[in-house]
């Protein structure tokens, strides 16, 4: 979507949002819907951030970075009217196929696994039990996602101030309603690792491999790392449905963009913010790279926390905050390989229209753990975990001439590649991706017309996301909830009065979800800074 500038833009706005990622747009729309004048400033020439299309060949659009929608927050969707005629968004739901080199793939549909012959999977009962339990627990975490996390500011002496801890009380309450047995189980697994959690009940196969891969996609952690049950639950927090937006990820950007502009938000692209102005410990506006100054009562940042701090100037932050933000963990581990194909590749043993599905290459949980190892040494995984989808099979609107797109996310690709990210390194990564795909779809190489490779470092360059990280910051237990993005900075308020974080780096975290942006806007309103 290409937003036009107003003919007579007001000199000052109630709020300026830096960055037109879907979270920035959600924040802007939420504020505008309450009657505030909002300006969104985006560095790139189009909106959407990590959630948008890229035209790889004429008329052929790939999801540039993010490719599937599974965690959109229902409150956000409802409040912004996503999927209504005002902000259309059609979702095509997808099954998941976990590929096996032997051709014994597993189809997972509505939480139930089956084999390629359509027969129930031998571990179906156990899988369903685990899956349902995790989804139930995930729902509890999901409830937390639209609330400001409880504050522990000032230490435990303040915890009696339960007004702020209301979110936690609520979840505490629901925990009790869950029954003692479930509650005990929830607390037991919350910090544990997904590898043991799965293999306690399942064999090490493509079925457990797929869940292990889902648990750690985007994380700097293998499935044996503590906290990976939490990250899986996070992923399942909004119902766990995997969908493909009709029109590609660009349609998602457009939907958020329309929700914003319909409510009166002004969106300016090619407007990189160079500086946030602070007077008397209050954010008063921004300065663009061009030197242009725009004033506002509040400034919200869709960027990572360290860049957000640096825009205002380190002098406005306490030493402890700068320490935490300097050491904020955000080493991205996901790369993107987008292929334009002359026709649909043939996956050995994949029947019927299952090629439409979300395809997972993670033939066992151990495979996933092994794939993680090299990243620790700044090396490329030779046998990577891949999540691939061919969106053009479900949605012809994004392509022409029968061309197809294969969009692949490779896990555990180092941000800090040994020797640095060069064209040769990108070439090597592309080769690894193709070789891995060839194991399952032997004819694929010959079909490739065009390829786009984005390393985590490239993703950082494109979007500004720290480390090119999926969530703009690791979802480790030290960086979630009350600690997101860091201790004492978890309330969207970010240093000077009127300055806020509104992107994936804030609670609840990343994915195309919209909750962080919407919550930040609610906090701005609650704080009364726009009065």
């Amino acid at each position, binding site marked *: 979507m290409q937003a036009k500038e107003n003919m007579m833009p007001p000199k000052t706005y109630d709020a300026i949002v830096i960055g037109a990622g879907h979270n920035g747009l959600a924040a802007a729309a939420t504020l505008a819907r309450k009657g505030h004048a909002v300006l969104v400033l985006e560095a790139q020439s189009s909106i959407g951030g990590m959630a948008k299309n890229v035209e790889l060949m004429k008329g052929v659009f790939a999801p540039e970075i993010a490719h599937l929608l599974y965690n959109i927050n229902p409150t956000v969707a409802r409040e912004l009217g996503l999927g209504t005629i005002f902000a259309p968004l059609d979702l095509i739901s997808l099954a998941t196929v976990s590929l096996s080199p032997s051709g014994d793939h597993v189809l997972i549909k509505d939480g139930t696994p089956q084999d390629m012959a359509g027969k129930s999977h031998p571990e179906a009962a156990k899988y369903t039990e685990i899956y349902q339990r995790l989804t139930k627990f995930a729902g509890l975490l999901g409830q937390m996602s639209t609330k400001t996390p409880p504050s522990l500011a000032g*230490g435990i002496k303040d915890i009696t101030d339960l007004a702020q801890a209301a979110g936690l009380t609520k979840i505490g309450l629901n925990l009790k309603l869950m029954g003692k047995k479930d509650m005990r189980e929830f607390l037991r697994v919350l910090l544990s690792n997904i590898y043991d959690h799965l293999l306690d009940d399942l064999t090490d196969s493509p079925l457990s491999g797929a869940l292990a891969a889902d648990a750690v996609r985007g994380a700097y952690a293998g499935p044996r790392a503590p906290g990976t049950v939490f990250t899986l639950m996070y992923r399942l927090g909004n119902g766990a449905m995997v969908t493909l937006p009709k029109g590609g990820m660009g349609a998602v950007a457009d939907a958020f963009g329309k929700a914003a502009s319909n409510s009166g938000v002004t969106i300016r692209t090619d407007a990189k913010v160079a500086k946030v102005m602070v007077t008397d410990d209050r954010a008063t506006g921004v300065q663009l790279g061009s030197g242009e100054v725009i004033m506002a009562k509040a400034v919200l940042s869709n960027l990572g926390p360290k860049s957000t701090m640096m825009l205002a100037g380190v002098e*406005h932050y306490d030493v402890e905050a700068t320490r935490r933000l300097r050491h904020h963990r955000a080493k991205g581990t996901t790369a993107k390989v987008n292929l334009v194909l002359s026709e649909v590749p043939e996956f050995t043993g994949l029947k019927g229209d299952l090629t439409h599905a979300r395809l997972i290459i993670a033939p066992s949980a151990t495979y996933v753990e092994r794939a993680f190892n090299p990243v620790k040494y700044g090396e490329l995984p030779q046998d990577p975990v891949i999540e691939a989808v061919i969106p053009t099979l479900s949605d012809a609107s994004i392509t022409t001439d029968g061309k197809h797109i294969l969009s692949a996310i490779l896990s555990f690709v180092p941000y800090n590649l040994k020797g640095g990210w060069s064209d040769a390194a990108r070439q090597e990564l592309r080769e690894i991706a193709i070789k891995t795909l060839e194991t399952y779809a032997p004819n694929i190489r010959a079909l490739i017309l065009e390829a786009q490779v984005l390393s985590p470092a490239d993703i950082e360059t494109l979007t500004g996301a720290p480390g090119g990280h999926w969530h703009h910051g690791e979802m480790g237990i030290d960086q979630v909830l009350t600690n997101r993005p860091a201790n004492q900075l978890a309330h969207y308020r970010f240093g000077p009065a009127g300055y806020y974080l509104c992107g994936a780096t804030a609670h609840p975290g990343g994915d195309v979800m919209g909750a962080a942006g919407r919550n930040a806007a609610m906090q701005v309103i609650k704080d009364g800074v726009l009065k």
Partner: protein
Amino acid sequence: MSKHVPIGLIETPFHPRLEPLSRAKKWMNWAGYISAGVMDTLEFEYFAIRNQTTLFDISPMHKYRIKGKDALLVVNRLVTRDIGKIRDGRVSYVLWCDEDGNLIDDGTLFRYSAQDFRLCCQESMLTWLIDTAWGFEVTIKDESHNVAALSLQGPTSYSLLSDAGISVGDMKPFDWCEVEPGLWISRTGFTGDLGYELWTSNDQALALWDRLWGAGHHWGLRAIGFEALNICRIEAGFMAAGFDFQPVHHAVRLGRGRSPIALGASKMIDFKKGHFNGRRALLTEAQTGPSHHLRKIDIGGFKPADGALIYYKKKHEVGHVTSGVWSPTTKRNIALAEFKAPYGDTIKNDLWAEIYINKEGQWDKRLVRVEIENKPFFQNARSRATPPKPF
């Protein structure tokens, strides 16, 4: 033999002079250095501070040099006062806080220029300063082991310096300057009286000592230890780290930190100078009021009340003495004490200290009256006189 990292306490550059002078052999550990607790007799040393002149080795103090283009920004980011208002060649008593507004330490900041400062304090502060300076153009250097320092305190200290050929007649309190190449003097101290601190390099230390000692006899010069000085600082109403407040980086338990507001140093906070560490927390506390109040108190009787609990209406425990001594000069039983708010602030009457008295093996408990004091217990115009006289 190769040189090893010394094991145990190390000697200050003045130790070769102190060791033979020490009769009491009462040494203490001050920041890893051998430091005198008492040199001879506590009473002699105390009265020498108040009536003659004294030398105390303050070399163990931590000293940091903050130098560079952004030095003023960095010190202003560190401390609660506005150092922009301090002129070159001046010293400022400063406090600095963590993000919750609790005191990390207090100390003295010496301004050479807007690009060059020295910070002296009790606590080791290197990593904190390095982190405070992150993002700024400055270098932080730990000078703790390179700079020797002596505190020359007492009414005849000015006269002694004159006799030693050092002219400091026009130095006002908190002035500081290089009086001779390599010798810096500040008119500062911890006694509330006339006095100076002398700073030089380690290799010049003994020559400086000998020069002062040589000129000192006529002026009653004595080498002293910490204990005598401690009485004087309580008389002057100065708080001390580890006694009257717990440096918050060392406090293990929650809620043990105290803000400058709680410590009665609100005037040392400049909210208008821009952001500094802990400012937002302090601003909130300035509105809601602190949880505690550190106050000067006068206690009935003459039994020093260090550590005594304080009660309201002889019933409710509302505080305790943090530093208590018998003050020989004012002939009063004085102390600094911490009260839980609002005691010591809006409630100042009917306060009692619980004192235990041991009469040859028999313990007796007494409640004695506590009066809040606003002024320092010891004040003397000579401490500010410029030029000073041979008092």
